[in-house]
């Protein structure tokens, strides 16, 4: 029954990591060496290929830092720095995580509530649904500072404005997925329960809620990733108050390319971990439901 190892997930992931790193090295040598060569030419100094290639491994402001530079920086700011230090990426991740989770919680509840409303109330469906979609065409980053300022005016500061932006991004996938899920209830099952004269509440808790669960979890996975993006985005304009977003910004502002990449890596890791936690919940739940896993 054991599949060949080439079909195993871990093998594929190892292969991916190896090839990504290989491509990354080639690209970074190429880009950085080009840049170095240009610099030498500007200063009309002579250079050789082997010289720029070897130098391209440790440029201070690289076009593309090679993986080891990023990993070193990442390792340093995660493990070699006290968690309480402002230079620790863990410290900043925690700040971002707070608003991410709060925003995700709010967004999920809001998303589910809207979906339930839309599925049960035709007026709400007709009037509100188009605007749910349209709401996502508003560029969030553009309104993020406005939200921060307006909320600041009513003395909502700190984690709440960030969480609200995260919520704005994460409620949408939840609403869409949940509407679809609640509607995905099998027609035959609906009719069956209709023959039992089930009330709308019974219909919801015995049927719709269950048929929506797979959709809900798919949406929650998108939602939590979106929430993280929202939290990071919200940290840009809120100024230098910590968090991965402000770390990205200051990295960008001070030309610390390696730091940007390390922070991006951290954000991606954080995102994957969050998504996987949701996926874990999904598996547990589906197993409890007796799905064939």
């Amino acid at each position, binding site marked *: 029954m054991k599949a060949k190892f080439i079909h195993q997930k871990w093998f594929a992931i190892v292969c991916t990591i190896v090839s990504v790193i290989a491509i990354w090295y080639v690209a970074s040598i190429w880009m950085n060496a080009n840049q170095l060569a240009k610099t030498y030419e500007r200063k009309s100094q002579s250079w050789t290929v082997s010289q720029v290639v070897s130098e391209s491994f440790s440029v*201070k402001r690289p076009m593309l830092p090679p993986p080891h530079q990023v990993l070193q920086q990442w390792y340093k700011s995660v493990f070699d720095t006290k968690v309480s230090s402002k230079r620790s990426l863990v410290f900043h991740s925690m700040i971002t995580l707070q608003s991410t989770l709060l925003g995700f919680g709010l967004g999920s509840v809001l998303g589910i509530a809207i979906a339930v409303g839309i599925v049960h109330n035709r007026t709400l469906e007709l009037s509100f649904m188009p605007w749910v979609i349209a709401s996502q065409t508003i560029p969030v980053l553009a309104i993020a500072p406005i939200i*921060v*300022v307006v909320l600041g005016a009513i003395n909502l500061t700190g984690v709440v404005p960030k969480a609200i932006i995260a919520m704005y991004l994460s409620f949408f996938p939840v609403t869409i997925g949940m509407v679809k899920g609640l509607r995905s209830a099998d027609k035959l099952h609906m009719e069956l329960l209709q023959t039992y004269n089930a009330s709308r509440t019974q219909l919801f808790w015995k049927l719709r809620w269950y048929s929506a669960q797979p959709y809900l979890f798919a949406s929650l996975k998108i939602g939590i990733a979106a929430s993280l993006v929202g939290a990071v985005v919200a940290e*840009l304009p809120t*100024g*230098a108050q910590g968090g991965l977003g402000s770390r990205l910004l*200051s990295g960008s*502002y*001070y030309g610390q390319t390696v730091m940007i990449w390390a922070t991006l890596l951290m954000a991606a890791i954080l995102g994957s971990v969050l998504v996987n936690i949701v996926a874990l919940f999904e598996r547990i739940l589906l197993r409890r439901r007796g799905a064939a896993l």
Partner: protein
Amino acid sequence: ADKLTLQLKWVTQAQFAGYYVALENGYYDDLDLDVTIKPGGPDIAPAQTLAGGGADVIVDWLPSALATREKGLPMVNIGQIYGKSGMMLTCLKTSGISTPKDFGGKTLGVWFYGNEYPFLSWMSKLGYETTGGSGVTVLKQGFNVDPIFQGQADCVSTMTYNEYGQVLDGGLTPEELTLFKYEDEGVATLEDGLYVLEEDLADPKMVEKYAKFLKASIKGWQWAAENPEEAAMIVLEYDDTGAQTEEHQVRMMGEVAKLLNTTGKGIGYLDPAAYQRTVDVLLNSDSTPVITKEPVGAYSHVVFDKAMSM
């Protein structure tokens, strides 16, 4: 203690050392003030925070303050910290620019977000179009000076105390660069100053509070100018992003100290002549008007006078 919130124009850095020093050394406490400092960022318009009630005092540049005033937010300068402009245009020699006459057809990196007014006035004075056509090509410069390294711009905007250092850190040498300081080009405008809402000044209690704040801040600035290294360390302490380096902040503090107001009655006093120079520069830019008429009541000395009499 009286509560007071200060909104900075940019992220925590030595540009704002005086306020952090005053906070750290307890100068605000001494005057029974409970000051909160809100760092700014690329999308924080301090004036908006002021209008929304998120801050009592903001740090802003005079050109954008005047423009905002014309937009209908009655904000008033109560103290001028910087006397000289730190803005300059930093150009690559290899791009063939040695005088402003050479700008034609070149690509210049400029900060927008309310920081573009002095530049626009200058170009207007030089007679360059900035919106395509003949003239100069303008790039909205992002958060850093990368364009000059990437060869995407011939010149980038820098502050003497900040981005210029980054240009040097990035491997360019002063010999490779031509600098155009706004001060030297006669288009200097007043930069970091303190602003409050006009209606607050009608209330003597508020004036008193602001006076205390100004007094302590001035003290902070004086201390910072005298102890640049310690001041830089204090700033680092308050930087929540952890991105600032000691080396950079010490250098910034040194440069900032050179810009502090020395005219008239010193730090904190807005010299009416300097004010008028800024207004004239702005009014003279006919192609892209920053302000259209002579502003009235855009500054007030009542807070400064009160502070000095305390």
